[in-house]
């Protein structure tokens, strides 16, 4: 993690001047040919993000890898289940475009990895979106209304926290998801992943509800929903976007763990964790284990880079501790 390379920038004051927010596109002040353009909070964030070198590297890496996964049908040289028994366990070669070699029944490994990326990215993105939205909603209600909703939610998260995630997920997946449908796995991971997000949102909402602008909105007569989602939500977006991004990596890793241990996605769909597990039987054929795992590591690193960039861009005063 390098320190942000962005030059010093003065963030626009959030205070109101004459009832008008400074950030609004006030007509440019022209003084002696010097033109000043008012920038909104978001355009500052965008600039900070685009200048974050590691975040850009991560973003490009993700676009390439996820793009290949999404367009697996067109990118992969073979299908993931095309068997060629004359060409079994062959190392990586350019002959016949087997850049990642072939597996024990002669399937092209690059194609299998690309289809594995497709599975992983679907799991990662869907889990991140679903659990973020759900956690956001629950956390907002708990933080805003306090009372029994808050109590119940905090006790549930307490219970979930008494066990390591992997133990809970494995037990649930083993007993429910033996059929190993991709969406069962997504549902199982998402069912546990919303809790940390709800906790974070709750924390932010707890402090925001005491702010003056919330009081002002109440005085004007705004409804609870309007206050929560129109006034408070935009102020929580920073941590939520960052955590949502990191959730993609976490979900991909969790799916890989489940699939690796044989409680995840069932055959014939390839997934990165399952490919690594398959390679375990052939310790001499290094590419079967190393390459899919390497793709997994690169995805996670890229997601983390993007997450760090977003944190620096959206939430500049937050301390840069990753816990």
């Amino acid at each position, binding site marked *: 993690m390098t320190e942000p390379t962005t030059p010093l920038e003065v963030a626009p004051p959030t205070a109101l001047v004459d009832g008008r927010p400074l950030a609004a596109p006030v007509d440019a002040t022209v003084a002696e040919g010097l033109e000043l353009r008012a920038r909104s909070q978001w355009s500052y964030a965008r600039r900070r993000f685009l200048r974050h070198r590691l975040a850009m590297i991560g973003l490009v890496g993700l676009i390439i890898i996820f793009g290949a996964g999404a367009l697996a049908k067109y990118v992969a040289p073979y299908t993931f289940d095309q068997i060629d028994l004359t060409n079994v366990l062959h190392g990586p070669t350019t002959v016949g475009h087997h850049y990642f070699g072939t597996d024990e029944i002669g399937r092209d490994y690059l194609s299998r990895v690309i289809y594995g990326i497709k599975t992983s990215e679907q799991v990662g993105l869907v889990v991140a979106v679903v659990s973020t939205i759900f956690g956001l909603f629950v956390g907002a209600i708990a933080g805003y209304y306090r009372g029994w909703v808050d109590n119940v939610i905090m006790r549930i998260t307490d219970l979930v926290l008494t066990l390591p995630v*992997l133990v809970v997920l494995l037990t649930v997946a083993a007993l429910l998801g033996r059929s190993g449908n991709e969406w069962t796995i997504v549902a199982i991971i998402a069912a546990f992943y919303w809790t940390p997000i709800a906790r974070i949102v709750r924390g932010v909402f707890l402090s925001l509800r005491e702010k003056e602008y919330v009081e002002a909105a109440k005085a004007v007569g705004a409804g609870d929903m309007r206050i929560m989602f129109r006034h408070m939500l935009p102020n929580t977006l920073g941590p939520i976007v960052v955590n949502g991004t990191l959730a993609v990596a976490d979900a991909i890793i969790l799916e890989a763990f489940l699939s690796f241990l*044989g409680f995840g996605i069932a055959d014939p769909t390839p997934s990165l964790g399952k490919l690594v597990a398959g390679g375990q039987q052939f310790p001499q054929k290094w590419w079967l284990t190393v390459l899919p795992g390497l793709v997994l590591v690169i995805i996670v690193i890229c997601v*983390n880079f993007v997450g760090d960039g977003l944190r620096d861009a959206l939430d500049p005063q937050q301390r840069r501790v990753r816990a």
Partner: protein
Amino acid sequence: MLTYIARRILYSIPVLLATSFLSFTFITKSSDPLANLRANPRTNNPAILHHLAHVYHLDQSLPVRYWYWLQDVFVHKLGQSLLTSQPIWPDISVAIEHTLQIVLLAQVIALILGVAVGIYSAIRQYSIFDYTMTSVSFLGYAMPTFWLALILQIIFVDIYLKWHVRIFYTSGLNSGVTSSTWSIDRLQHIALPVITLTVVSFALYSRYMRATMLDVINSDYVRTARAKGLPERLVIFRHVVRNALIPIVTVSALQFGALLGGAIVTESIFTLDGMGYFFITRLQTNDVYSVMAYVMIVAITVIMFNLLADILYGFLDPRIRYD
């Protein structure tokens, strides 16, 4: 302080009961312990099945079954397996011993290395050493344990096959019949699992230590210490490191749960007869009560370590008061 500890222990009892009841409900509802007998035509006899269901209280309602199970846990040391009718305790206690050895070794090594590297990185911020260690820990974060474990396995299998040198064994706990806990043979066997678990925690600790060190170094009392002319060595070790170590205590206690999760994967890759291996094999055979026993032991361990973290925290930092 004593009342605080007592209150925390009392509070953890309902949490444990709730966790156990929820897991019990879930695990018993979603699997049929008599499935094997039903599948076998010789034992698929209503009279036999009915008798067994009665003996094991399977025909009772859920709360009643839970009550019988809870009694078994206390009276008969976790009871017996429904699948094999063997007592669970002898198997799991051996497994706990093995896992503890691996996890504690990994924890101690990771802590020593992580703290040392964190201190040095913070003192020489932005040096080559700092950047190298940052990249190493970023990689350590992103690497799934199973991939790292498999790569180590591949490397050491390769070394053995090429040069016929046994540096570390790649599976099992002993090569002979049995070997004592700290024999060279045992250490050669557990070295790779310990390295695997160490890498992941090391990444966390070194990052955390660096961040808290930097935090403390910039505080006022450190400036005072420097201003009154203390030698730098004293400033760092007497004033900075001592305070920076406090958060590490909490982090390492919380990391213990994650290590138990990591042990599941590591032990199943290196086929070590530890808790994780116990859990996975029992999960695969639907051995309900053994899975419950594992879940309970992990939950108790995690709760205990959380409590320990809080107590130590109060000890180390007198600013924190419990009331």
